[in-house]
């Protein structure tokens, strides 16, 4: 019993010591609330590395307004309860803004806290449309650096019309996911608005399907067209590519899809790299884009993190620089920083040129990557 009491007393003592120290703010604190452990740490860790790189760079360049930037890093382990606790702790410690979280669910838990405490949070990669919403209205204190899924339909339609000079398209997708349905309808609308023609209705199939020959035969029977838009993830898209290349009339047609195509398994599912020709997909970031900013980011990130940057690290890097710009413009008052963030227009990042729309989603360019023999051979920036 005595042991227990002394143990508890010790804990309390340590804790009071931890909470007692407050210091005058000589640095600008930015909080990271990311998934650094647990099942989705593959998302959080590269974003942390990118944020650290951005902070090291800005501090080397003299900081913001002569003040050094300091990161306060908390791990939420993909746990919504921890995400709430972390953001409250960060706000208590006087951060100017929060970066996080990498995935949608924790970010939706941070959102109400951010709104209540009036400190903005920006998620680099939370793509759920509801992340920046507070019920039916926008949550003014949540931003995101990535485009949301349906937005890709718009970019890909522009890509098909402008870059592939397509006039006729066919759309197919899974009927069991919102991802596919939203993408299919937005692609159709934008492609038609661009003066193209979408032949027939969307060819839907179920998520569990593995044989698409019925749909592909009907598609081939529609006559000649330029683009086949497949709104789905690699698991089905790979099989569709494989079966389309074996269908008379579809052997060489351009196949276009969203970021769900980006998977190491795509080539295997498509029956070998030789089948993956004339295939295009949209993504947030590509290392083969010809852009000076991207090249220097790749070099710096590879040197500091010991690995090549992914879309996640690039988005976090951009989010950090947007925060720096907002703090530079507005000082360290969190509400003013939010206003400056909202007013961001034409921010030049490594993932494109970014402004925010009414729902705090970025209006930005996307990258469309071309696959030739299963390899990424070309990447172009497509504006919305």
């Amino acid at each position, binding site marked *: 019993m005595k042991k227990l009491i002394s143990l508890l007393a010790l*804990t309390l003592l340590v804790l009071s010591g931890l909470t007692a120290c407050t210091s005058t703010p000589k640095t600008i604190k930015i909080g990271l609330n990311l998934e650094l*452990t647990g099942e989705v740490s593959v998302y959080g860790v590269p974003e942390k590395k990118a944020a650290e790189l951005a902070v090291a760079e800005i501090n080397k360049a003299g900081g913001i307004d002569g003040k050094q930037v300091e990161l306060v*890093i908390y791990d939420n382990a993909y746990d919504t309860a921890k995400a709430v606790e*972390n953001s409250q*702790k960060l706000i*208590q410690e006087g951060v100017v803004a929060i970066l996080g979280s990498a995935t949608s669910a924790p970010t939706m838990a941070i959102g109400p806290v951010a709104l209540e405490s009036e400190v903005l949070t920006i998620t680099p990669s939370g793509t759920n449309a*509801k992340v920046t*919403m507070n019920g039916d209205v926008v949550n003014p204190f949540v931003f995101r650096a990535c485009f949301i899924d349906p937005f890709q339909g718009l970019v890909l339609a522009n890509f098909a019309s402008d870059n592939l000079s397509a006039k006729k398209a066919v759309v197919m997708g899974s009927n069991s996911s919102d991802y596919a349905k939203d993408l299919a309808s937005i692609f159709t609308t934008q492609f038609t608005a661009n003066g193209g023609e979408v032949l027939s209705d969307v060819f839907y199939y179920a998520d569990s399907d593995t044989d698409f020959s019925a749909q592909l035969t009907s598609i081939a029977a529609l006559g000649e067209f330029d683009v086949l838009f497949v709104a789905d993830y690699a698991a089905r898209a790979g099989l569709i590519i494989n079966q389309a290349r074996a269908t008379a009339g579809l052997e060489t047609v351009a196949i276009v899809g969203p970021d769900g195509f980006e998977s190491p398994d795509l080539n295997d599912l498509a029956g070998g790299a030789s089948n993956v020709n004339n295939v295009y997909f949209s993504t947030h970031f590509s290392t083969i884009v010809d852009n000076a900013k991207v090249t220097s980011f790749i070099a710096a990130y590879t040197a500091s993190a010991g690995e090549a940057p992914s879309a996640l690290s690039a988005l976090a890097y951009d989010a950090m620089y947007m925060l720096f710009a907002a703090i530079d413009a507005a000082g360290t008052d969190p509400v003013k920083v939010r206003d400056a963030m909202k007013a961001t227009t034409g921010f030049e990042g490594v993932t494109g040129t970014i402004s925010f729309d009414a729902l705090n989603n970025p209006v930005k360019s996307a990258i469309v990557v071309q696959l030739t023999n299963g390899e990424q051979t070309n990447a172009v920036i497509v504006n919305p």
Partner: protein
Amino acid sequence: MKNLLNKKNLVSLVLLVIIFFVFDYLIKARILTPYYRTVLYWMGIYIILSLGLNIIIGITGQLSLGHAGFMSIGAYSAAVVLASNPTITGLFIGMGVGIVLTMIVSFIVAMPTLRLKGDYLAIATLGVGEIIRIVILNMTITNGASGISNIKMLMSWPLLFGFVVLTIFLTNNFKQSAIGRACIAIKEDEIAAEAMGINTTKYKVMAFMFGAVLASVAGSLFATTYYVVKPETFGVNTSINILIIVVFGGMGSLSGSIISTIFIGFVNMALQPYAEMRLISYALVLIIVMIFRPQGLMGAKEVALNVLPDFKSFFRKKEKSS
């Protein structure tokens, strides 16, 4: 009635009122910042969870690893009802729906599985927790993998305090009652208990359902505290976390569960800034305590429920020695 108004009960009542108003003041004066308040809510919710599991594991001796599954039923019921009725009434309706659903599910689960013993029961309940999670993952009303967000935050200190005190009251009375005695007998020796005329299946099912309902209530409170519910939150890891708290506090000791929840809450808080190190140090703290206190912090003993006589004897001893 006279029995209720004895000195001991009055003292507990006064203590409760004092605790309530001290924390109420600390929160209103913002001495307890939102962060510490959330930690307090976490502790309260986990006290309810661990007391519920202690009834099943510590008192009745049935190893259950499906506690988080029942928690998710309560959490999703509250979240769904709160979406259309974001008031405290909505929370209570959701909680009620959760309790009814949990009672049905736990009854259906308990009847066959509680005939299993030891490891087999653990595996069966583990499976049940997973089944509940997969069902939630595939239902439309629960919004599948993305979960339900933007749940109205209704958690407050009076609400939490009310439910924690109610849970302590109910579990303590359960333990002291004839049912509780029967459950303890089942834990000690099931065959002997049966020979004494105890309907073991009946009491095991009762204890299991009671613990599950408490988990469901805690789940409802969880949903309204943390804005978001998603299926992964209620996976096997959460069940094991609750199990750790119960084992750590001492199986069969209700006050042990309360103390260990508070202790682990503080440990979590102290280790928060250390991402990867947290996992190691958390495990280390547990291992060290379990080496020195293999029976858990409290063993099967209780404290605080009869705090006054203990203190009296403590002081008397001191007087004698001095």
